[in-house]
């Protein structure tokens, strides 16, 4: 190694040091700890808080036998399917597609309204929707005005309620992504297909969808990852209840670690969350086809 390349190496280490330091301690460290602690019986209080023991796969055995864990997995899948994939992704695409080539002012107004829900912090979103869906809330007021009986939304349809709130909060992201990729569809191809007598639906499914397929896949993974991590919205709206009705994995993890004080068990659950995230992230990177 000659002296100038050594200088470069030393200099780049100096420049990268602060970020390595922070990432190692606060990001990679906790991820490694997840692997370690999930094999211990660490507790928040009591004797096990002082002296934790290595318990092997006990937490995982407990987890797979725990009916609550299975419920959480089902709730997480339902939440992902309804709010991320069907809700945000499909509604986002629909919005972007319908808004294409519409009156600019109209487009802008609808865009601002949808984006407002996205910009609003999650905790405020939760508050808005609790108020909206409450027994004496706006939705029931409208239903009463139509001469029907109100519904206790958060108790009768808790999962649907949190899904709708999450759709309201997240759809703008998908909409913006799809607006950008729909703008890339060459207008001339569309015109040509129209000339050949293709119907609107044919143009959509045979022409536009294949062209924007890449961004549909990437967006699907990103939205899934975002929704997988949703805690605040559900916690503030329903607390995971009633019962276990909205207990997704993050809520289950929180309850085990901080409500039941079983940190080791809670970590085992976060390891599951993390592994799902890892798989999705790898798919995400592959779908991006980035050059570094």
């Amino acid at each position: 190694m000659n002296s100038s390349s050594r200088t470069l190496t030393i200099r780049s280490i100096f420049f990268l040091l602060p970020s390595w330091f922070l990432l190692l301690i606060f990001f990679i460290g906790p991820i490694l700890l997840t692997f370690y602690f999930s094999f211990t019986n660490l507790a928040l209080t009591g004797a096990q808080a002082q002296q934790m023991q290595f318990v092997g796969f006990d937490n995982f055995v407990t987890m797979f036998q725990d009916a609550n864990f299975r419920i959480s997995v089902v709730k997480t899948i339902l939440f992902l399917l309804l709010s991320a994939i069907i809700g945000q992704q499909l509604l986002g695409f629909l919005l972007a597609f319908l808004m294409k080539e519409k009156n600019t002012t109209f487009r802008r107004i609808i865009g601002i309204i949808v984006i407002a829900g996205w910009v609003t912090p999650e905790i405020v979103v939760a508050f808005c929707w609790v108020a909206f869906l409450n027994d004496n809330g706006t939705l029931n007021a409208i239903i009463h005005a139509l001469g029907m009986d109100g519904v206790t939304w958060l108790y009768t349809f808790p999962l649907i309620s949190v899904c709708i709130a999450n759709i309201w909060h997240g759809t703008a992201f998908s909409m913006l992504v799809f607006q950008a990729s729909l703008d890339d569809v060459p207008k001339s191809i569309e015109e040509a297909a129209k000339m050949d007598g293709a119907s609107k639906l044919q143009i959509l499914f045979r022409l536009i969808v294949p062209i924007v397929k890449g961004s549909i896949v990437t967006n699907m993974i990103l939205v899934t990852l975002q929704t997988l991590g949703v805690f605040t919205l559900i916690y503030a709206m329903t607390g995971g209840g009633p019962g276990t009705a909205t207990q997704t994995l993050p809520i289950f993890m929180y309850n085990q670690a901080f409500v039941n004080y079983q940190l080791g068990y809670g970590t085992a659950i976060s390891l599951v969350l993390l592994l799902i995230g890892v798989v999705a992230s790898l798919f995400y990177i592959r779908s991006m086809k980035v050059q570094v």
Partner: protein
Amino acid sequence: MNRYTLEKTVPYIVLSMIGALFLLPLLWVIFASFDANAKQALSMPSLFTLRNFSAILSDPTNIRAFIIGLFLSLGQATLVVIVGVLAAYPLSRYALKYKKPFMFTILFMTSLPITAVMVPVYQLFMFLNLQDSLVATMLFLTASGLPYGIWMLKNFMDAVPLELEESAWVDGASIWTCLRKVVAPLMIPGICTVAIFTFSMSWGNFFVPYILIQSPDKFPASVTIYQFFGTYGMVEYGKLAAFSVIYTMPAVILYLFSQKFMSKGFSFGGATKG
């Protein structure tokens, strides 16, 4: 109505309906914040008043919560930019052997759900005796924002031509001066984008401070507002709505501001942290 006009009007009707459904929950919080007798259901305030806002802003507890929120978010955004620009420099300028694996690790980390690491982070904070420390919370937020920050800043730095730097070297400037006086100023739009995005994410973050901070007098605004509507069971809707509006304002203003910088195109680059 013939088929042609039907095809033209249906999208407008559908869009208007979706727009109305999106607008309703938001309208309530805005109307209620100006309403002296706000109720749960949306109604036009019979009397517009700023009393809710003045009640929120005259309470020192709330002011403290906003200041703590500002400390966390501004501190995080500043550190992410500084540490991120430093890291981006060798990654953008030098042919490093570990560049590719490093960048892929970074990209990988941008999309990991932070929720998944909160329990071990809590354990780490206990172990290091950092629980209840605002500075440590801010450093953790910085680390969680760094992958996105480094990724974006490296891309922005790639766009700054090397020739400008080279001519500064000829004039005798050091690498350090070059970075500060030549490269950084040319990256202002990129730096602002990263700073605004980082700030907004952390300003709206409830989970991280909720787990890592224990003393109520150290809660940022996001946790205070939760305590508000958790504990008091939404009795004072007007005040709660006013708090929400004030708390949402920085995010809205920064979003509008960021449009100036982000207009160059919407990037996928790891916009995932929630």
